[in-house]
């Protein structure tokens, strides 16, 4: 079993998702079954194979180096759950 209680807690922490005990149990089961299933990739010989990260066959075009001011702090803040004096507001970070 690849994922145990400690591992799931670690991943949940890295993902910034709080899990309750019941959820942890369920995800341990799900993730282990998925990881067992993807194990079959080890049958494939990938020696000297380049990893494929971008399938796009297009060449990155250049553009004019001109400034383009499309950002507006007002628009950006429009959907913020909490804001203060032109900034995003979050709970106190420094004690």
């Amino acid at each position: 079993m690849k994922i145990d209680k400690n591992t799931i807690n670690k991943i949940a922490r890295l993902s910034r998702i709080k899990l309750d005990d019941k959820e942890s149990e369920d995800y341990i089961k799900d993730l282990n079954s998925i990881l067992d299933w993807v194990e079959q990739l080890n049958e494939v010989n990938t020696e000297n194979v380049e990893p494929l990260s971008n399938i796009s066959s297009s060449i990155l075009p250049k553009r004019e180096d001109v400034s383009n001011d499309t950002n507006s702090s007002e628009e950006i803040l429009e959907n913020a759950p909490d804001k203060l004096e032109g900034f995003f507001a979050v709970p106190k970070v420094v004690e």
Partner: protein
Amino acid sequence: MSKSSLKQTLKDLDTKKISIRELNQDYLKRIKENENLNVFIHFSEENVLKQIDNLEKDNSAKKLKGIPIAIKDLFCTKSMPTTAASKILENFNPTYESFVTQKLLDEGSIFVGKTNLDEFAMGSATNTSFFGNTINPLSQENEPLAPGGSSGGSAAAVAADLCLGATGTDTGGSIRQPASFCGVVGIKPTYGLCSRWGIAAFASSLDQAGIFSHNVEDASILLQSIAGFDQRDSTSAKIDIPNYFENLDDDLNGKTVGIPKEYSIDGTPMEISQIWEDAIKVLEKKGVKIKNISLPHTKYALPTYYIIAPAEASSNLARYDGVKYGFRSDEIDSLDEMYENTRAQGFGREVKRRILIGTYVLSAGYYDAYYLKAQKVRKLIADDFNKAFKECDFIVTPTAPSAAFPLNEKQNDPIKMYLNDVFTVPASLAGLPGISIPFGKDQNNLPLGIQILGKHFDEQQVFNAAVSLERSYE
């Protein structure tokens, strides 16, 4: 029920046989009659009437002027909220317009509403939406069926004739599979043909926008409208977009179709093997050369996809932190608590599952074993297609391993659910264009789909083969 096509409607509007207002009121009426299907996350009659008013004052000629289009609720729209079917974006009102929807607005189309989907496009039945299931319009009274997913709302909107076309996105089959389930046409173009700018990201190396429509001709008209280069998407292709519709040619004489033997999978229902054979026979009669091809790494496509897609999703969805937009939890004693509670309460089960698995395969010590390995197998899968396309002009396969299944049937076992994408995922990994067209029925009279795959940016060949098969079937 005979449904008007986009092509015919454009003619009728042009000859003033019908007005933009009359046309759209007809669609509004049907939308209201079909509320039980839960096709739309956002629908406002007032908004549609406002768009009609504005178009009536507009004297310029526009290609899609007055045409009712439904938009998958993954595309950011200024005039309507955008939720990605997630609680975490429940109250999100974009301050900008996605590239694809802007193109449709520029052409004069009317947005009838934002359609339901699996949360962040993660699912194959439109049953992971925070806003409830969409019901397949082809369901019988006593047994509601799934419309497929993730673009199930858009597929259902076309199938129930609530619009003349709809946008979708396809990461591993999210246009083609619901098109097959709902008996409509759905095309996922080549990766890079349509800009991803303004589409809520799921797996960026796979996500691609596309079209649902009543028939292939309509799809060719609409795809041309949403395609094009955009410098805000670094993977957007700078190529000339052909006039797919004008160039449609159903004469396939002398072409070669590839039939991949690896797509004959144990346990595929007889009816699906049968429509596949029927399609091949039709093509043969049209003078198409049948070529048996091999795509040897096909069986590894699904496990490859279910490493790469969650890995990219875990990274893309890190932005939903309760700070900049969307939902924020009330339990926020510290910044970390705010993040963890917001994401715990804001995301649904399937999304969390994929974020967790994606985080795991990218985490220190596991990256090489999972993510890098999957990227290497992805290269082999893409190479399989490159080799095959040296011997054939297009490839024909079934779209999905089943017809529409009952709602919630496959929810408990994630791997069983993932198998829905078995025929669609390989082409997604290779970035190839693919279309699903209705072709035949199963014993319960439910539609089945045939998938046609083409070379990179050879949408024209895909459309030509599709229109040829469609015309032979009608």
